[in-house]
């Protein structure tokens, strides 16, 4: 019998007792999460479970009411004033990919990827463009550099958005339903890129309804419902033997359709 070597790495993302409510509606209740470096965490659960809100709290697109977030050493405590420098540092460490891409439609593909490098990392135009072209080439989009985003397909736009986020050398990539607004066939292009990233050791948190991706690529599966984490662990284990009744109900709904 051989034992797998256990590598204990320092978590890149730590969430402690995070809570958030919109007036009377509780969207997150006491969420704790620890994401080790180099792992892929898939978050699943019914809509309204708080998955996207949790992800959006991580880079403060939403303000949590209480709790603490640590990303790559940048600590943020809810309720305390965040100075813009810390906020920028935190957001640079966490690359975000949105369901609707959120590219800048008035800029070319190349400018979309280069502009944040110039403004956030203070790179020169030439340095930024070199990095952008390297990433676009990796995404198979080098020929789209001078096009505008609207001339690209949804799958291409999402890969441009991934390149734009990667260009800032983030420590963790946050994916908020990256394939939900894409045709299934087009979504595959994006999933392929995400698999490559995972294989290269990028730390990733992925909110998704792609159960195959969750099962095959993720190291950890987190099931959320009603604003809390109800179950987490190795994906296969949870998919085959869910412990929680709510998880069973959700998995029946997504797998037996």
């Amino acid at each position, binding site marked *: 019998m051989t034992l797998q070597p256990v590598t204990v790495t320092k978590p890149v993302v730590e969430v402690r007792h995070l809570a958030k409510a919109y007036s009377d509606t509780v969207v997150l209740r006491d969420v704790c999460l620890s994401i080790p470096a180099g792992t892929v965490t898939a978050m699943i659960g019914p809509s309204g479970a708080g998955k996207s809100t949790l992800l959006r709290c991580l*880079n403060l*697109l939403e303000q949590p009411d209480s709790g603490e977030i640590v990303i790559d050493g940048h600590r943020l405590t809810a309720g305390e004033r965040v100075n*813009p420098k810390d*906020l*920028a*540092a*935190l*957001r*640079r460490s*966490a690359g*975000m990919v*949105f369901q*609707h*891409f*959120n*590219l*800048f*439609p*008035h800029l070319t593909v190349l400018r979309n990827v280069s*502009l*944040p490098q110039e*403004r*956030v990392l203070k790179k020169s135009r030439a340095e930024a463009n070199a990095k952008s072209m390297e990433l676009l080439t990796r995404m198979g989009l080098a020929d789209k550099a001078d096009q*505008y*985003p*609207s*001339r690209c397909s949804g799958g291409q736009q999402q890969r441009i*958005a991934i390149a*734009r*986020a990667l260009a*800032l050398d983030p420590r963790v990539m946050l994916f908020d339903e990256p394939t939900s607004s894409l045709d299934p066939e087009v979504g595959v292009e994006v999933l392929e890129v995400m698999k490559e990233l995972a294989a290269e050791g990028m730390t990733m948190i992925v909110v998704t309804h792609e159960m195959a991706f969750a099962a095959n690529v993720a190291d950890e599966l987190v099931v959320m419902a009603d604003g809390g984490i109800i179950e987490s662990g190795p994906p296969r284990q949870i998919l085959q033997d869910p412990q929680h009744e709510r998880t069973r109900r959700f998995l029946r709904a997504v797998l037996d359709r």
Partner: protein
Amino acid sequence: MNTFFEDFATFAPALVGGLRISLLLTGASLLFGLPIGLIFAFGVTAKNKILRFVSVFFVEVGRGAPALVLLQLMYYGLPNANITLSSLASACLALTWTTAAYSGELIRGGLQAVPEGEIEGSEALGMSRADTMRFVIIPQGMRIALPSLMGFAVLLFQTTSLAYSVAVPELMSQAYSTGSSTFKYLTVFIAAGLLYAAISIPATWLSVWLEKSMSKHL
């Protein structure tokens, strides 16, 4: 019919001279009014109470009061407060106010129409508030506002005809004085109308063309 064209040719130098003043007045009002309008666009939604109050005051009065009232106020009213401006300067001041008020609201509408997702996209990348404004919100907001701003500019050009009431020698007042000295009112007002149209109609075409060419990749 021949006499119409002969009269037209006789009146032309005076009318074209007036047209130049009309265009000058339009241009100056836009030159000063649009930047002030951009400030108002931010001012009416500013957190700072004083800035917001001042912006809302000038925007609401500028849009609420007819341009004719503002023109008369600046030319006949201000001397009572010991401020005496030339007719052209007072007309320019009044129409700058009108321009700033209307364009402020048009620009604000454009800025607010920039999709929230793009702003979030920019923020999530760690871009500062100022950079997001400069590289994402303003370029796109201005693009959205541009067609209505061009439409406003055409209206403003036509509104300059009101400046005849404060003795600015623009196209309308040239037409009026030519008419009153020759009694050929019909000819002279048709000629003036044609000159206004000769500017307004191509300007409208230009704005439609510009709108199309700018929204090509959006």
